[in-house]
Every structure is written in structure tokens, then in C-alpha cells.
């Protein structure tokens, strides 16, 4: 290690990339100097001390005292950090929630800290996936070795990806096992699975591999279809008995390795665990959550609902909006979708973000419940739904056309979007999948709002809500453009566009890649929504998103819808977020909020972020993915009329600015997004 001092470390760790850690196992000579650490602690004393200690270790330190800010930083610069150190006890967000989110979204190693050394707290850290737990007061010696977690994680990643090698399956699985054990140790349902898995692994012949971390295999893109197949296989086997080998056999997808399935399964389980934890915690919904197939579905949908709630909770979505959104989402609810467009305006009152969080949640849950039915199954939207979606999309589109900067517009869109989407989306993957779906169905107008689209998908919901919030503000202009350009754009698409969050677009892009073109398009919008929130302000993202959105939607609403349904690969990612209804929702919302606010997105960034975002849950679509998936970044521009998008974006940008002042950016009409 180079002990040249601060300068050396700085020079080594370029913000753009941590060459030492990213490029396979090639490690800089100076490593671990220059390790990019993000430290989060609300205690300024400890924060200052940690910062100094880490600097003394020659790490590159970024400190922040709020979890939301931390998430924003991480999202804005997805590849900008190597490891996160976070306090457990924080006022704005529970450290464990942050831990989960980071793990899901960015897949970075997270170290927890606390003055509390009681066993159950430490255990909590373990079960939530912390790679280490430090007791305060922290000594510098403890910090000197944190780089090992970064290396370890990357090693696992690479090995995980190394699915092409015959022996890798075993090894990968075995490598994955410890992680999985950690993740699932607390889950009751995991017990059997773990046991069986262990047995299975033991039976397999462990093949000692040399260090293959330098090998970077192309990541498998978990398209919506692929994920559907996966979920179907898991449900068929039963969540307890779903082992990668059997799942692989059931799926019968050529080229897919057990390793791919294993890592995907790991994420899926995490997602389910969260769902069940959240939903049951929330309001005891869906007792079926715990059950295998149904639970999965239920959780999925509930997640969607949760997201909205979370969003509402976080104050981004006005309570009323949330309620109305929920109403919309549920066809059968009395509130019903009949929300007139006009009323939607009310939904998006920006002022009362935190009101009725509980209500919203309830509603969301209900919504999700309903949606559960469809959830999890790569359902095809019923023709009726599609029709209604299209119709609503049209209607909204009309509204949107007016370029109504008011939140109401967005809200209406959201509502619409969420409504149709909620059904289909909820089904699939509450989180990630929803987003794309919703968006596509709603069509352009909605998307413009950007927020709307976000609402739709679970991920989208959470995100969408956020996005919605943002979008109305800035989206107004973009909306118009959208609608003009692409009438049938899936909400998600426009959403993506509107919101700066290129990431979402990217995500969807990646996912789309795998799928049928039309579907892919739809999903594109979808995925974006998630990130869109964050990137709302991003110009680039907007352009990017818009492009994607537009193009996607054009493809064909129906197919898009269908596709979007499938697109949920990202749902996993989303899952993490929506699952925690109460706490998480808030945090998610907050996180998204904060992210959206300041997120900067540039195409490349989005792609990366998107990739990583998606990848986290599914395949870790990291930067390298972009090329594979057709570079979401690239794709988007082509699809939309760039000029149109640009102008729309620019308008949005302006709109956003003005909106912010107008609404204080706090109101997220997404509350009412029906999930």
C-alpha cells in the first residue's frame, strides 16, 4: 500500500471509477488507499472522528449526517463509492433500512456501527445483510481492514457471474451461500431452504477454482419474461424447496446457469422477506404472504401498495393523493378509479405530504391485495384492462396535452396510470415490474408527468410517486411534448423522460433488452420510473428518459403493456424498497425524494445507475451491461424525437424549477396513486 499520504489516495481514487476495485480483480498497488467510503452518522462528533480516522487510513471519505442524503449521494453516483459505513441509530431513517436499500440498490458492502452491542442488534445487522458491525467508540484499527469487505464482495460478484464455467455453478453457489445464509437467517421460511440448499451444495462436487475474479462474464438480463418464468418455477416448487438447480430445470432456459438462478433467487428471497415483513407488519394483510406462491404474489402487489404508502409517508405524496391513487388502483374499491381528472388536481396538493400516511398505506395494502391476484404471474392484461388503460391513457393524454404544470395533471395521470397498471403491475412484481407496466398502459400523457409512470410500477409506485411529484412540477412541459410526440406512450416512458432519472430508463432499458422489442419498450418506461424520481431534475435523464419513453410507447401499447408486465426484473430491486411499508416506505420515499431532488443524471450515469440499480436485484446490471442491453442510453435517444424530448426536458427543467418554488417540492401527488 502506498503510504504516500492524502495526495496519493486522492489521485488514486478518481471519482469516475475505482479502477482498483472495479476492473475485475486487478487491484491497484495502492489499494486499499483511496478506498471510497461513505460514512453516515447523525452524531457530528462521531462523524468527525470517523472521517479523520478514515482519512488517516488513506481512504477517500465522504461524510453525511442523514440517511436520505446518503442515498441520494449513492444514487447520484452509483459507482462513486466502494463501501458504506452507517450508524444504526439515526433520526430520519433507521440504519438497517438504509442498509437494506443500499444493498438492494447499489449492492455495496455496508458496515453498521452502534454504541449498542447487544446481541439482538448485532444479529439484526447480520440478517439485514451488513458485512460487518462495529461497536462504538470505533477505533482506527477496526477501520483499517474494512477494505476486505469490498474485495470480498467483488470477488463474490465475479464468481457469481462466472456461470459459464462448468464448475462455477457449484462454487458460485457455495460462495453465494454464505451471503444467502446471512440474508435469510432470520427468515422462518428460509430454514428448510437453507438446509436443502446446503445439502445440495454438499452433494455437488465443489470445484476449487482459481481466482476467477478477473473474469467478468456477461450478466444475464432478467427480463420480465425470464423473471416470470423464474417466479413460476419457484412457486411451482414451493418457496421452501425452490433450489436453483430445480428452478433452472423448470425454467428450461438455454444458456441460463444455476449460478444465475442462484443469485437471482437470493435477491428474490430478500425481496419476499421484505414483503412479508412489511406487509404483515403493516396491517397484517395477506397472511398469505408467508405462504409460498401466493405469498409471493401477495407480497408483490402489496409492495406496490406499499410503495405508494411509503411515498405518502415520506410526505411526497399527499395523503389524499395516496388515497385517491389507491382508489384508482383498485378497480373494485369504492373510491374507484372513477377519479375524475379534475379531482386529481386535488390529489396533488403538495402541502400535506405526511397526512394520512396510515390511511394511504391501508389503502395501498388493499390495493395491493387486489392486485395480488394477478401478481406474480406474467399476466397478460385482460383485454378489458388494456382497453381501459388505453382509454385512460388517451384521456389523460388529452389532459396532458394541455401541458398542465399543475400537479393535478400529473396526478390524474398517475391515477390513471396507477389504476390500470396497478392491476397488472401489482401482479408481477410489485416493485420493479409495475413501473413499466403502468407506464405503458397509460400512455404518453401520463408519462410526461413522469410521476405517473413511476407510480404504476411498484418500484414505479414508489418512484413514480416521487416521480409524479416531481413531474408535475417539471413535467408539465415535458408532458406536452410527450403527448404530442407519442400519444400512446406508456406512462412509464414519459415518466422516465420527464424525470431526470435516467436510471429508470436505463433500468427499463436493460430489462427491455431481453424482451420482445415491443415489450421492452414498455418496460423501459417502467423502469425509469424508479429512477426517474431520483433524477427528476436531471436534464440528461429527462432526455434520456424521454427518449425511451417515447419510443417505448409507440411500440404498441398493448404489447408494451404486456411487456411491461413482464418487465419487472427490476422489481426485485424495487422490492426492497416497497417492502418496508411503514418504515421503509418513509425511507424509501425520503430516499427517493432526496435523490430525485438533486439527482443529476447524465445518460451514462443513468445507464450505470440504472444498471446497477436493476442489477442489484436481478443481475446487477452494472455499467458493463449497457452495451449488452443496447445501452439504454443510446437507445433512448434514438427513439424519441430528440429535439422534442430536449425541448420537453428543457421545459420541464424550467417547470421543475418553478414548480419547486411553487410547491416546495414536497408535495408528491403520488400518494394517491393506486397501486
Amino acid at each position, binding site marked *: 500500500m502506498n503510504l504516500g499520504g492524502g495526495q496519493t489516495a486522492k489521485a488514486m481514487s478518481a471519482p469516475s471509477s475505482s479502477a482498483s476495485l472495479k476492473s475485475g480483480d486487478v487491484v491497484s498497488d495502492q489499494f486499499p488507499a483511496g478506498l471510497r467510503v461513505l460514512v453516515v452518522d447523525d452524531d457530528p462528533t462521531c462523524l468527525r*472522528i470517523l472521517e*479523520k480516522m478514515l482519512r*488517516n487510513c488513506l481512504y477517500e471519505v465522504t461524510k453525511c449526517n442523514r440517511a436520505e442524503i446518503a442515498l441520494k449521494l449513492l444514487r447520484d453516483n452509483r459507482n462513486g463509492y466502494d463501501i458504506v459505513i452507517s450508524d444504526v*441509530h439515526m433520526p430520519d431513517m433507521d440504519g438497517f433500512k438504509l442498509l437494506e436499500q443500499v444493498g438492494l440498490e447499489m449492492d455495496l458492502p455496508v458496515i453498521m456501527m452502534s*454504541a*449498542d452491542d447487544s446481541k439482538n442488534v448485532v444479529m439484526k445487522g447480520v440478517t439485514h445483510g451488513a458485512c460487518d458491525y462495529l461497536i462504538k*467508540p470505533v477505533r482506527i484499527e477496526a477501520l483499517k481492514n474494512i477494505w476486505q469487505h469490498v474485495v470480498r464482495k467483488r470477488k463474490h460478484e465475479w464468481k457469481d457471474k462466472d456461470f459459464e464455467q462448468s464448475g462455477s455453478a457449484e462454487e458460485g453457489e457455495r460462495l453465494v451461500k454464505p451471503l444467502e445464509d446471512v440474508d435469510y437467517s432470520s427468515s422462518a421460511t428460509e430454514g428448510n431452504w437453507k438446509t436443502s440448499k446446503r445439502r445440495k451444495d454438499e452433494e455437488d462436487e465443489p470445484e476449487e477454482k482459481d481466482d476467477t475474479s478477473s473474469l467478468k462474464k456477461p450478466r444475464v438480463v432478467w427480463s420480465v419474461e425470464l423473471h416470470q418464468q423464474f417466479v413460476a418455477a419457484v412457486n411451482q416448487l414451493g418457496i421452501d424447496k425452490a433450489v436453483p438447480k430445480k428452478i433452472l430445470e423448470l425454467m428450461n432456459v438455454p444458456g441460463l446457469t444455476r449460478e444465475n438462478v442462484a443469485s437471482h433467487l437470493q435477491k428474490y428471497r430478500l425481496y419476499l422477506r421484505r414483503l412479508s415483513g412489511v406487509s404483515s407488519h403493516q396491517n397484517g394483510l395477506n397472511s398469505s404472504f408467508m405462504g409460498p406462491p401466493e405469498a409471493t404474489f401477495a407480497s408483490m402487489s402489496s409492495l406496490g401498495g406499499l410503495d405508494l404508502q411509503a411515498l405518502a409517508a415520506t410526505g411526497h405524496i399527499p395523503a389524499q393523493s395516496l388515497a385517491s391513487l389507491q382508489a384508482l388502483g383498485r378497480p373494485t374499491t369504492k373510491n374507484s378509479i372513477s377519479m375524475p381528472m379534475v379531482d386529481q388536481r386535488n390529489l396533488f396538493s403538495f402541502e400535506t405530504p405526511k397526512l394520512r400516511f396510515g390511511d394511504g398505506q391501508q389503502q395501498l395494502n388493499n390495493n395491493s391485495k387486489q392486485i395480488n391476484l394477478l401478481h406474480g404471474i406474467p399476466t397478460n392484461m385482460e383485454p378489458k384492462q388494456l382497453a381501459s388503460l388505453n382509454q385512460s391513457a388517451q384521456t389523460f393524454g388529452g389532459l396532458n396535452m394541455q401541458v398542465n404544470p399543475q400537479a393535478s395533471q400529473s396526478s390524474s395521470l398517475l391515477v390513471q396510470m396507477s389504476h390500470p397498471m396497478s392491476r397488472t403491475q401489482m401482479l408481477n412484481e410489485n416493485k420493479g415490474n409495475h413501473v413499466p407496466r403502468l407506464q405503458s398502459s397509460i400512455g404518453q400523457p401520463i408519462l410526461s408527468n413522469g410521476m405517473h409512470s413511476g407510480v404504476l410500477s411498484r418500484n414505479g409506485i414508489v418512484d413514480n410517486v416521487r416521480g409524479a411529484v416531481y413531474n408535475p412540477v417539471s413535467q408539465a412541459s415535458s408532458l406536452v411534448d410527450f403527448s404530442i410526440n407519442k400519444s400512446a406512450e406508456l406512462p412509464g416512458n414519459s415518466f422516465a423522460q420527464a424525470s431526470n432519472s435516467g436510471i429508470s430508463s436505463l433500468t427499463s432499458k436493460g430489462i427491455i433488452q431481453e424482451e420482445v422489442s415491443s415489450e421492452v419498450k414498455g418496460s423501459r418506461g417502467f423502469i425509469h420510473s424508479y429512477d426517474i424520481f431520483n433524477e427528476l431534475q436531471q436534464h440528461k435523464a429527462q432526455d434520456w428518459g424521454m427518449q425511451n419513453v417515447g419510443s417505448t410507447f409507440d411500440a404498441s401499447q398493448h404489447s408494451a403493456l404486456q411487456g411491461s408486465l413482464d418487465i419487472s426484473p427490476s422489481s426485485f430491486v424495487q422490492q426492497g424498497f416497497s417492502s418496508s411499508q411503514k418504515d421503509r416506505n418513509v425511507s424509501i420515499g425520503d430516499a427517493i425524494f432526496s435523490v430525485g431532488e438533486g439527482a443529476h443524471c447524465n445518460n451514462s450515469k443513468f445507464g450505470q445507475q440504472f444498471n446497477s440499480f436493476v442489477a442489484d436485484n436481478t443481475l446487477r446490471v452494472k455499467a458493463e451491461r449497457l452495451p449488452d442491453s443496447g445501452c439504454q442510453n443510446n437507445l433512448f435517444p434514438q427513439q424519441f424525437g430528440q429535439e422534442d424530448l430536449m425541448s420537453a426536458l428543457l421545459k420541464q427543467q424550467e417547470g421543475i424549477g418553478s414548480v419547486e418554488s411553487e410547491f416546495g417540492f414536497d408535495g408528491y401527488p403520488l400518494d394517491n396513486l393506486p397501486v
Partner: protein
Amino acid sequence: MEGNQLQRQATHMRRTLFDQGYLDEQFIQLEELQDDANPNFVEEVVRVFYNDSARLIRNIEMAMGKNPMDFGKLDDVMHQFKGSCSGIGAKKVKRECTRFQDYCKEEDPEGCMGAFQAVKQEHATLKGKLDAYFQLTRQC
């Protein structure tokens, strides 16, 4: 020489703080972090601590004022305060914090009140001593 004398005084004062249990090992950690780039690091951290701890103490006061006492919340806030104290090695203050938390667990309001007084007392005492110490070291 005066410089040497001041230095000796500072050293002695520091020694006493440790011997009398006001400071613990963590304080030494802070001292070791001090370097040419950050020559007043320890003083800086202690200053940050006292700024922030005033706020935490106010939080505890407010929570203590509630009737009935929310022991869970009190324990929570005290936990934060204690974590902060441990950062600078405030040994005695930390001990009183633990006593307070014990009373919280027993849900003993009077015990809590008494312990809180002790916390504040130790907190103020340490501040005085450290202020004097830093004043001395600055002169060296």
C-alpha cells in the same frame, strides 16, 4: 523555562484527567489522530461534542418533562448522548449515562431524574477541565 513549565503543567493535567477517570482510552485515540495537518483536532472534536451534546441534553430535558415519562424514548435519547460521549472518551459522563439507562429500564422516574442530574454535573465538570487543559496546551 516557561515553555517547559507550561508543558509540564499540561502533561500533569492530562495525566490527572486519566487517573481520576474523567477520560479513557478513546481520548488517546483522538490524540493519535492529531497531526500536522490537523494540529488542533482533539480540541476541535471536543468543541463539536459540547455543541451537539447541549442539544441532546435539551432533548432529554424535554423528554423528562413529559408526564408520564416515556422511558423508551428517554433511553433512546440517552443512548445517543452516550454514544457521543464515548466518542471523546468522556468516561465519567458515560458511566452516569449508563446509570440513567438502568433507571429507564426499571422505569424509575426518580432514579432517572437523579441520574440525569449526575450526567449533567459530570458533563459540565469535564467541560471545565478540558477547557483549562486546552488553554494550557495552546500556550505550549
